[in-house]
């Protein structure tokens, strides 16, 4: 907290007269009313002694904001009045003026609109965005909030007084009481002016000027640069502070869980620290300057023994406290509502994940009626909703279609894309027996309307269960492994780019024969790329070893033990990426 030394010549420094003023106007959203708003602003700026060039800039800002509400606010903007509030208050080295426009139109944050660049030629000029450009150029600062179903747009500007204020000022000089009569008279006049500067503070309303300046004799004004904490939770406090200008925010429970913290704005004129000053207990919240801030520091004893006795001050304190408590309650309710919404969204997401998983054939055994083939899938979804997929179904009594794939990215977009892929594959597999044609058609269809730029790697093929002939094609997916007893090797793949990137791609197919007892093991890179805490992936080597080890086991057991190895490797039950596998093995005829 900067506490500068008082300069020796401060006695001849006259305080700049800083005025305080607030004014309000209610209008409806129509063109004619804009004139009324301009006239109001003009008058209020005059009363607040806002320099005329600044007032002209504010008038432009106000007009453009109102024009925006009228043109784009929709029906809801006309359903409730627009309120305008202007405040002029002293600032660090001069004064500042803020104007807030509140409307119930469609939520719109003008500050989120990318700034248009100034057009270079008349031909290229679009008749758009000029209003926002004006607002940005004319206002000293801008702020937007959406609260209570209304837009609150604030713009303002500051101006320097002729006299620079020193870093620290006293409202009345303590040690200099024994001055000559003439000086005392001058001093009184000056302190009267200083008192006028603080009489806008609600706490001091109705308090006699003379009493007030005596009570505040030795109080100091502190200047805090933005980011400085004024009070820290847990600390002892002996002062009550009154915010004179700038923005202070109190963070309740900020040391604990961010999800439960509540932030409350302290408004100029309000007290901080009065609770700990009342009960003598440590500070309950972190209070931090969010902009450069001026606060009046009142010693606890002065606060209780002198200020509280002044006319109306105790009542004013109660009013201020009640106001802030109400705001804190509203804020807490608002935050709780937001958290409930988040909770709801999370449960919706969980439902989506379950629905997605239910699209995959996860039942075991997959084809209980068949003795000639065993097929088994496995999918352990990651912490995030993802886009892994696999499928296996019979086209006719002897032709089995299998596929496995991995959609790039995570989240709802990937999940929806995965659902599209599964749906299209099921249709396409019924139409053609050529896997490369499936990939070509799928690619062309997915490239249409793929605005999210998602891709999918895919391996698919048709197996003649009677002969073991397997025709397959690949689109950028990792090679499945063929396991003949203890001998494990990757399946040789035809070339093919991933699906969804560019239309008109061609794919080719290959054939092989799966002998009875041979296992085809397909997986996604969530298996091989699963990392341990040191960042080392599970790798194909890890797969090979597990497959060799379990060569003779039923395929469901192979998949389960592989998954177990991956979990042991990562040291975590919750995987970063989906872990998806599909295995099939031809069985010897039962007879």
């Amino acid at each position, binding site marked *: 907290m900067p506490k500068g030394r008082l300069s020796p010549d401060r006695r001849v420094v006259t305080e700049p007269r800083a005025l305080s003023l607030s004014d309000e106007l209610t209008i409806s959203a129509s*063109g*004619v009313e*804009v*004139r009324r708003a*301009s006239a109001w602003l003009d008058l209020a700026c005059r009363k607040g002694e806002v320099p005329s*060039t600044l007032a*002209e*800039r504010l*008038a*432009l800002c106000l*007009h*453009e904001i*109102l*024009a925006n509400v*009228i043109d784009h606010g929709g029906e809801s903007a006309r359903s409730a009045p627009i309120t305008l509030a202007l405040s002029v208050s002293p600032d660090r080295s001069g004064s500042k003026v803020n104007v807030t426009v509140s409307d119930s139109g469609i939520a719109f944050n003008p500050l989120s609109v990318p700034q248009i660049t*100034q*057009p*270079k*030629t*008349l*031909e290229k*000029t679009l*008749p758009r965005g*000029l*209003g926002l*450009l*004006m607002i940005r*150029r*004319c206002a000293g600062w801008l702020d937007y909030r959406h609260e209570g179903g209304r837009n609150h747009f604030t713009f303002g500007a500051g101006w320097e007084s002729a006299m620079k204020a020193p870093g620290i000022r006293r409202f009345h000089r303590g040690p200099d009481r024994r001055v000559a009569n003439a000086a005392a008279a001058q001093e009184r006049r000056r302190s009267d002016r200083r008192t006028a500067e603080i009489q806008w503070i609600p706490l001091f309303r109705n308090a006699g000027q003379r009493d007030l300046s005596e009570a505040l004799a030795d109080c100091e004004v502190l200047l805090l640069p933005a980011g400085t904490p004024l009070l820290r939770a847990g600390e002892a406090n002996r002062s009550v502070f009154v915010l004179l200008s700038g923005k202070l925010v109190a963070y309740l429970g900020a040391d604990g869980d961010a999800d439960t913290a509540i932030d409350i704005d302290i408004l100029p004129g309000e007290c901080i620290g009065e609770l700990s000053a009342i009960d003598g207990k440590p500070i309950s919240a972190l209070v931090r300057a969010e902009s450069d801030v001026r606060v009046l520091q009142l010693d606890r004893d002065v606060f209780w023994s002198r200020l509280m006795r002044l006319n109306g001050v105790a009542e004013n304190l109660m009013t201020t406290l009640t106001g802030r408590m109400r705001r804190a309650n509203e804020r807490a309710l608002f935050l709780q509502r937001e958290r409930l919404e988040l909770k709801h969204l999370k449960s919706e997401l969980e439902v989506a994940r379950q629905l997605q998983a239910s699209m995959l054939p996860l039942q075991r055994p997959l084809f209980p009626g068949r003795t000639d083939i065993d097929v088994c899938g496995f999918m352990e979804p990651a912490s995030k909703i993802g886009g892994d997929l696999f499928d296996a179904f019979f086209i006719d009594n002897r032709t089995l279609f299998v596929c496995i794939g991995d959609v790039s990215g995570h989240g709802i977009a990937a999940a929806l894309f995965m659902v599209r892929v599964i749906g299209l594959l099921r249709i396409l597999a019924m139409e053609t027996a050529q896997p490369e044609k499936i990939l070509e058609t799928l690619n062309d269809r997915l490239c249409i309307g793929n605005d999210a730029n998602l891709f999918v790697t895919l391996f698919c093929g048709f197996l003649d269960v009677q002969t073991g002939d397997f025709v397959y094609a690949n689109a950028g997916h990792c090679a499945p492994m063929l396991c003949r007893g203890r001998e494990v090797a990757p399946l040789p793949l035809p070339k093919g780019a991933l699906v969804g990137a560019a239309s008109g791609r061609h794919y080719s197919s290959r054939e092989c024969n799966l002998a009875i007892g041979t296992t085809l093991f397909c997986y996604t890179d969530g298996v091989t790329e699963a990392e341990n805490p040191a960042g080392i992936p599970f790798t194909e080597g890890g797969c090979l070893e597990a497959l060799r080890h379990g060569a003779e086991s039923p395929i469901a057991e192979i998949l389960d033990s592989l998954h177990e190895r991956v979990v042991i490797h990562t040291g975590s039950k919750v995987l970063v990426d989906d872990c998806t596998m599909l295995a099939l093995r031809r069985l010897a005829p039962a007879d």
Partner: protein
Amino acid sequence: MSISHEDVGDKLRRIVISGRLDLPGTDSVADKLAAMTSAPKQGVVVDLTAVQFLASIGIRALISCAKAVQQRGGKLVLVVNDGSSVVMSLEATGVNELIPVFRNAADAERAALA
């Protein structure tokens, strides 16, 4: 809010606007302004010295007229009072770099015909 025009010879047209070019003000003169600037004159001078307030909607009207004049090979220029709020509006939007702005009528007329 008023708008009027006079022709100087067959090449130049002077348009004088007075009042506030805000939402209601621009509404009331925009059509007339568009009609006046669509006459086949080579140079158009729009005198804004009696305009106290120029909002973005007024600037949009001026831009579309200036574009129209330019498309048929002519030129539209503005006359303003130095240091006025109109100058501030033009500068804040950068439009003073797209439409020539002059401080006196004689310069403006010369430039409009150049």
